[in-house]
């Protein structure tokens, strides 16, 4: 059973405020090790150099969007196995389907509560303790 406090999670969003809110939400779940990246390039850098258990990335970002990041992560030798949760807006079912095909492990619709995020994470990596 994965331990929430031991999880190493990378949060990717170009909006600082949203990143911080996601961090707070993760902390409510008990996650202690949180990396942040404000764009895809930095995210790949972190994912390829840090041991990570999970990437939570926004879809809507300039330059490299969440789908492009997902593909880059899946194509990166050092990062390809890291579970990936895509954060999307409401109603974008088509995007979620595409993300699943591209190797996303789950999605979460913005805005989300701690409970929803926890459920989504547990669906990916198993019940947290």
């Amino acid at each position, binding site marked *: 059973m994965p331990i929430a406090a031991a999880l190493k999670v990378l949060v990717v969003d170009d909006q*600082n405020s949203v990143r911080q809110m996601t961090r707070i939400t993760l902390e409510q779940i008990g996650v202690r090790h949180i990396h942040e990246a404000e764009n895809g390039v930095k995210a790949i850098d972190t994912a390829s150099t840090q*041991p990570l258990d999970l990437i939570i990335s926004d879809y809507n970002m300039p330059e490299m969007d969440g789908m492009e990041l997902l593909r880059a992560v899946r194509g990166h030798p050092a990062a390809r196995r890291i579970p990936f949760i895509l954060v999307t807006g409401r109603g974008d079912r088509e995007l979620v389907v595409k993300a699943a095909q591209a190797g996303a492990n789950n999605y979460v619709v*913005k805005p989300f509560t701690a409970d929803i995020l926890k459920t989504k994470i547990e669906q990916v990596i198993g019940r947290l303790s």
Partner: protein
Amino acid sequence: MSSLDQLKNTFFDECSEALQQIEGGLTDLRQGHGSDDTINAVFRSVHSVKGGAGIFGFDSLVGFAHVFETVLDAMRGGTLAPSTDIVDVLLPANDVLTDLIAMSRAGEAIPPNYGQESRAALERLLGRTESDGPEEPAPADFDGLDFMPVMVGDMADAPAESAGDGKQTYAIVFRPQAEMLRRANEPLFIIRELQKLGELELTAETDRLPHLNEIEHDRPYIGWTGTLRTDARREQIEEVFEFVTGDCQVEITLEEAPAPAPEPMPMPVAAPSAPAPMTAAPAAAPAASLPVHQAPSVAPAAVPEPAEAARPAAPKAAATTMRVEVEKIDRVVNMVGELVIAQAMLGQIVHGLPEDTSSRLTQILDEVIHHTRELKDSVMSMRAQAIGAVFQRMPRLVRELATKTGKKVQLEMHGENTEVDRSIIERLGDPLTHIIRNSIDHGIESPAQRLAAGKDEEGTITLSAEHRGGRIVVEVRDDGGGIDPDRVLKKAREKGLVSPDAVLTEDEINNLIFMPGFSTADTISDISGRGVGMDVVRRNIQDVGGRITIKSERGRGMTLQLALPLTLAVMDGMVIKVSQETYVLPMSAIVECLRPSRNDIHNLVGGRGLLQLRGNLVPVVHLSDLLDMGVENSESDERVVIIADAGDGTRLGIIVDELLGHQQVVVKSMEESYGAVPGVAGATILGNGRVALILDVEKLSELAVTQTYSFTGGRSRNETALAN
């Protein structure tokens, strides 16, 4: 402030940036030079606002942003073509979005139907009508989309996921630190333990080994990098380091199963390359001599390389920014100011020394001066912002005013990227707004009038900014009717601002609009009248050390030019001396300095006089009189007259004893300590450590006028009248 409040503030700051993006993008689209990227960028910005608003619970904002976003999405998808008509709906929508954000930020209740009109227009673009009722809210989750769960941790080691033999290759970095040896932990044992787990290939890093006689026996100089091919779990590897964590640097990274090896690069392993010092460092060095290369040579491809090199080259990070509180930068600016002063003092001391002692010092001092200047420029550039931040507000203003007045006006902007000190930007918004209001209200004619005058039906206001001669020049130009001198003069006479018999040049008449009391009830319309006249505009610009000039061509339009300093913290000043006192005059106010002969000055009562200057008469005053210093004025020919511009084109000659030179001075406000002193703008500390007052030429001019010419009855145009 709670952390949530801080986050909300961060969100609203991001919103401001997003709004600028939206406005800029839509303006580009409106002017026909937008692309798919433009639409995408606008969409993304609206989407970001919506996303953040959702997280922070600003529901009205989410609702409106959603419709806005849907229209943009349709444009992105090609179902809506970005025509002018559509952009004309989107621009006001951005105004509504701006308002909603402002209200949310201020914590105001948002009226339920706020922006309804714009929202309905957006809905119409989407082919919806109000009778359709609100759009079904999209579900917050999607049914029927199942994702395969993966097991974290296990995942990395799951045999099914690794190549062939179920073994994984880990990149290992192990660098013992001094603590480890002090605690009597032997790196060698650790390496042996690792060897037990699988095939270990390590290379010793010997680059930190010092020269033999500098080696200390209790310091580990050698680290190892390499690979471990094993079927053990990561936890098992970590266990090996269990007792030394914290006392050494350890990195264990799962590597991809090696692809078919390229050219194997034979690399010497640890032992042979490690130089002699082993005997000198018994505790640390023997490890290096251990032949760790014990892996069976089945995999010659596993070339041990330092971890950094083995790592895929990290992509270049995108240009990065960070947010810093303005106060922090201001503190640095202040410190740089102090540094400039201290350096000037140092300079004075050095110059006072005998040359044989001072030459080396001078050399170093020059370097200090050079670096200080660079430091100053860097800090100033940190505070600089693109003037676009102010300009961005104007398109909306123009749109609204054009609608209200029934005029057709387009706004052109140039030089939005011109960087200006933040303190100036903050104080530029109101004057610019007012100038543009004036231009649309009084300058640009109605479409019918314009057509009759043979002009394009649509008027143009051009807003531009550029660096010019060490200043920022901002221009607002319109192609309206210009100033009607007869009307302005008539009104000025009615108001008693000009004596009935005064003869004024057209330039002087144009400048009358800056006179306090000129803007009065009958020019106050719904638009340009907030009871604020152009005199306040001029005042605002002068407050930041700027100058405003007006050019008008009757029937062709007018141009208002604002010349602003690059910064408020440091100023170009002329250091002058009167009797025993030293003062600083802002260079921006000085037109020329001259040493007139006694005959050129016609003395009037009270030591005041008139200077004959190239056929014109300029009032001159002794600075000592003006400041009431109570000293006898020297009548020597040595005295200097500084011709200063009081800001409105009025000239004033200031008689001083001596010019001490041109210097950059750091402006220190005195108002907090002494209140506003007429004629004094602030103070500075000179190189000799003495405080000098910085004079306010405009105020001095007012003082001179009220003191000198009260007998003529007029207020300030007298020198013109006399000259004629």
